[in-house]
């Protein structure tokens, strides 16, 4: 009986836990509850993935109001994959959070941190599960508002300005999204995405529908931090508490990519809008600009967290580039990169978090010589860095391989060059970290630094291990991504 209600439970469990955390007012109890709930959502997500793989798309009518009148939760292969990514990263972050949060956030606010974390998780999971375009906006705002609060908990005062900047950009983006949905509702009279998908592709010649697409894409690109709209991201990631950075870097932008793919391929039916407009050229161009420009800027950063944040912007370019080809293989590469980038960026930020836990700062000088003092942490960092570069035997290579195939299939030589060049930039900026950690001598005034606590190391090792395991042998993310891409594109030929 319970398995039929998994789609609702996926969102309701963390939503119920958030106010309970608020009532508990004890940071240890709050952590325990948040951790148990996050792990439960991961199990639910896996259950949903199994169900979807077994029986196809699940539709769940909230309140038994049949769609398209009621709100429908709809889980297809792609949605289930995103759910697994979000809840999986959340689960791995929790043991890390317990130790890290104690150091970075004042003790009396820690239980509030977990409340906000659970709300953010609710929002992100909700975005991936809902089949209603306006409900998606509500979840988008739940996750955004809680992430603004989470970012502002950083101890540097620049966290406040970063959070405010993100708030302004994020609200503009979300409002653009609402305008787009409003215009679509005007024309079609429905908010259900499956229902919209039936009607919108026949109405593409209408100016209103075109304008709606423009609003939707620009709005989500703001949340996504696509190149010219990425200005909020570096500071937000750099000054947020480390746990928040890991969680948001690995999930929030991924969920935005999910939304943009949903809009283009499900609501707008994919291929027709790519054939007629300049949308794919625009997305392709911006994706490539992201990869190159952010990669170049990353090279010159002196704060390691900011460097990785710029690298995130550059990696978002890969996903957007993948989805802009409009081919199954390109889209699959984009989707699989959601998964791959989530684990590698989480591993990188987590390794950095372990390092800062012990040495307290994140400039290159602070990393000097840590390779010998914290071998496991720095080893994981190197694995993450290699994945970022896209070396064979890591997950980064899988993405690049399929992206280049898609580009060749499309005859987009420029894209191939950009993919390779951006890999070179990644070599340069990750080398700076590796060089500092392994080849610089230990500063003489440095006290003895020990390896990070086990609670932080275990999730880190799991993530770094995943980077390698999924890079060498395990092909199920790629198979899933291919199947998801096929169903997204094949839904409406």
């Amino acid at each position, binding site marked *: 009986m319970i398995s039929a209600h998994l789609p609702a439970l996926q969102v309701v469990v963390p939503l119920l836990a958030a106010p309970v955390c608020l009532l508990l007012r004890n940071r240890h109890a709050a952590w325990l509850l948040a951790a148990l709930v996050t792990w439960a959502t991961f199990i639910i997500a896996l259950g949903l993935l199994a169900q979807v793989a077994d029986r196809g798309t699940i539709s769940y009518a909230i309140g038994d109001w049949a769609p398209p009148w009621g709100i429908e939760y709809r889980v297809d292969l792609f949605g289930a994959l995103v759910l697994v990514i979000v809840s999986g990263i959340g689960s791995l972050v929790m043991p890390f959070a317990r130790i890290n949060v104690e150091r970075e956030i004042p003790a009396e606010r820690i239980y509030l941190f977990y409340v906000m974390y659970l709300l953010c998780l609710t929002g992100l999971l909700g975005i991936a599960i809902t089949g209603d375009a306006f409900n998606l906006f509500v979840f988008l705002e739940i996750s955004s508002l809680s992430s*603004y609060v989470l970012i502002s908990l950083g101890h540097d005062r620049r966290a406040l300005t970063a959070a*405010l900047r993100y708030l302004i950009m994020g609200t503009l983006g979300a409002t653009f999204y609402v*305008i787009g949905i409003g215009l679509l509702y005007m024309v079609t009279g429905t908010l259900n995405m499956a229902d919209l998908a039936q009607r919108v592709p026949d109405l593409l010649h209408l100016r209103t529908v075109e304008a709606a697409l423009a609003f939707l894409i620009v709005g989500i690109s703001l949340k996504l931090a696509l190149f010219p709209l990425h200005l909020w991201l570096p500071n937000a990631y750099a000054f947020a508490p480390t746990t928040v950075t890991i969680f948001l870097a690995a999930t929030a932008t991924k969920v935005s990519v999910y939304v943009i793919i949903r809009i283009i391929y499900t609501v707008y039916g994919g291929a027709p809008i790519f054939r007629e407009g300049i949308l794919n050229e625009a997305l392709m161009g911006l994706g490539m600009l992201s990869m190159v420009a952010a990669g170049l800027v990353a090279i010159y950063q002196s704060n390691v967290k900011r460097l990785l944040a710029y690298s995130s912007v550059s990696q978002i370019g890969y996903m957007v580039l993948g989805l802009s080809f409009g081919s199954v293989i390109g889209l699959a590469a984009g989707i699989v990169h959601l998964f791959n980038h989530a684990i590698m960026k989480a591993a990188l930020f987590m390794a950095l978090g372990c390092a800062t836990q012990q040495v307290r700062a994140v400039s290159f000088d602070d990393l000097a010589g840590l390779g010998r003092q914290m071998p496991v942490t720095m080893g994981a960092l190197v694995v993450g860095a290699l994945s970022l570069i896209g070396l064979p035997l890591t997950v980064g290579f899988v993405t690049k391989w399929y992206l280049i195939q898609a580009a060749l299939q499309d005859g987009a030589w420029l894209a191939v060059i950009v993919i390779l060049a951006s890999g070179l930039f990644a070599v340069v900026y990750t080398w700076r970290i590796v060089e500092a950690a392994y080849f610089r001598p230990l500063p003489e005034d440095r006290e003895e630094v020990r390896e990070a606590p086990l609670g932080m190391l275990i999730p880190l090792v799991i993530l770094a291990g995943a980077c390698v395991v999924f890079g060498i042998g395990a092909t199920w993310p790629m198979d899933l991504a291919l199947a998801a891409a096929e169903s997204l594109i094949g839904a409406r030929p």
Partner: protein
Amino acid sequence: MAFAGLYNYWIVVVLMMIGFYVVIAQGNLVKKIFGLNIFQVSVFVLYITMSKVDGGTAPILDDRYQVYSNPLPHVLILTAIVVGVATMALGLALVVRIREAYGTIEEEEIEQQEGELP
């Protein structure tokens, strides 16, 4: 006549641009937040406008009326209003904290102070 008949939409566009302009052009953070709010409110008006049915009344079941306005956008906007209030409260709270941390709410002066930091 088309222009006059669609005056609601013109108001929406004008409000939207006012809000957007304030967000971009104002250096004062409180004004920025208010600009953001105006921008959001313009969208509320857009939704309410589209729900209006000519000659329709409030959607309360009664024998005397046959034509009702569409209630759904109203419900959606109720949600959006709550979101807007939450955003505004959070934004202003952040501005208060920024004022305490930097001693100013002018963007230029804040950037100046941030520029001096490493």
